[in-house]
């Protein structure tokens, strides 16, 4: 039986959809044992109804942990009501983890990517979207060697982020989030599931980045070469 330690960072439009599908798959995969840590410092509010799946108002991470533990008893869920920062990331991400990055800012992606570059074994699936298009990046590191480029390698907007962490934002800034389309969140979550299935279950790293666009109804998977340090 294979054992996995999964960390889901961000339980908003993408993360809340993703974790439901992932947990169902893992719970009924008899040869997989899993511990899943849910991280999000945000609370579920009425404005989230249109895109997010929660049974009640309150801490997203804690509500989702209770919901999923009841539905999927074979899995072991834990949660923390926190946002990832440079100061606390070491408390949550460990060697060998499988990490799903479902955040809404590039600064968090950079912190996660930089931290994971110093681990020996880690797998990162990072998704993000605009209103009608999105992408998923796959970062795999084994025995201290990158097998695919890290999240920043081909993305200067992540390497030099112009946005803020949720912990750096004012209440007003947090409240004024840009509109998102449920179907686009669903697209990102679905492609992250495909990536997980290929990399972890099939153990095939075919691609390192996948883009999709709802308006053109197209997707394209890219194989990126590793850059020399």
């Amino acid at each position, binding site marked *: 039986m294979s054992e996995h330690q999964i960390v889901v960072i961000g339980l908003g*439009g993408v*993360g809340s959809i993703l974790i439901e599908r992932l947990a169902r798959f893992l719970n009924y995969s008899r040869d997989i044992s899993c511990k899943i840590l849910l991280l999000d410092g945000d609370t579920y509010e009425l404005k989230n109804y249109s895109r997010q799946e929660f049974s009640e108002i309150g801490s997203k991470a804690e509500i989702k942990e209770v919901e999923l533990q009841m539905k999927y008893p074979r899995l072991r869920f834990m949660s923390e009501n926190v946002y990832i920062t440079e100061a606390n990331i070491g408390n949550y991400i460990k060697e060998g983890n499988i990490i799903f990055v479902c955040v*809404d800012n590039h600064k968090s992606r950079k912190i996660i990517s930089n931290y994971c570059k110093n681990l020996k074994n880690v797998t990162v699936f990072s998704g993000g979207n605009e209103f009608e298009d*999105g*992408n998923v990046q796959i970062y795999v590191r084994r025995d201290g060697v990158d097998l695919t480029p890290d999240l920043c390698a081909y*993305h200067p*907007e992540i390497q030099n982020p112009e946005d803020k962490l949720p912990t750096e934002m004012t209440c007003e800034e947090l409240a004024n989030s840009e509109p998102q389309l449920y179907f686009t*969140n669903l697209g*990102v979550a679905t492609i992250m599931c495909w990536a997980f299935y290929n990399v972890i279950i099939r153990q095939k790293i075919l691609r390192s980045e996948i*883009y999709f666009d709802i308006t053109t109804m197209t997707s394209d998977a890219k194989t990126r070469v590793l850059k020399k340090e």
Partner: protein
Amino acid sequence: MASFTREQLERMTVRELKEMCAYDLNMPGYSKKTKDVVIDAILEKFGKKTESSKASVKTSGPMTGMEFQAQSILTKPDAPFGSKTTTTIHVSCGASSGNFPVVGRTVGQVADFLREVLNVDKLSTGLVNGQEVSSNYVLKSGDSLEFLKPAGRKGC
């Protein structure tokens, strides 16, 4: 068979020219072509330069879409005369992609030309066969070009 001058061929009828192509010169495929195209093909067969083959390839300066496509077709070095096939390059940006006749053009020119078609960002970096290149890189047959699209920011 003796060769012909352009003047001699122009005095012949289209029917005579096409029959000569089909029966005497072993040049099938010209029954629907215009007189000028058939004459050019016959002269080409006898190794004489035609107006078309003397056309030069402009490599700089602003272009219209038509010029862009026409020049790219002319840049295919080994295309047989009269062939409508062109060397195309796979160009992508994010989820959008296509094959375009851009051999001989620079990455910067292609970015400008396909900006709206592929939604290429003005500051987007070009990757040729996976490697970063400058905007002055001239595309060759067999290259594959990707313009990097920024990652989606949102998700929560």
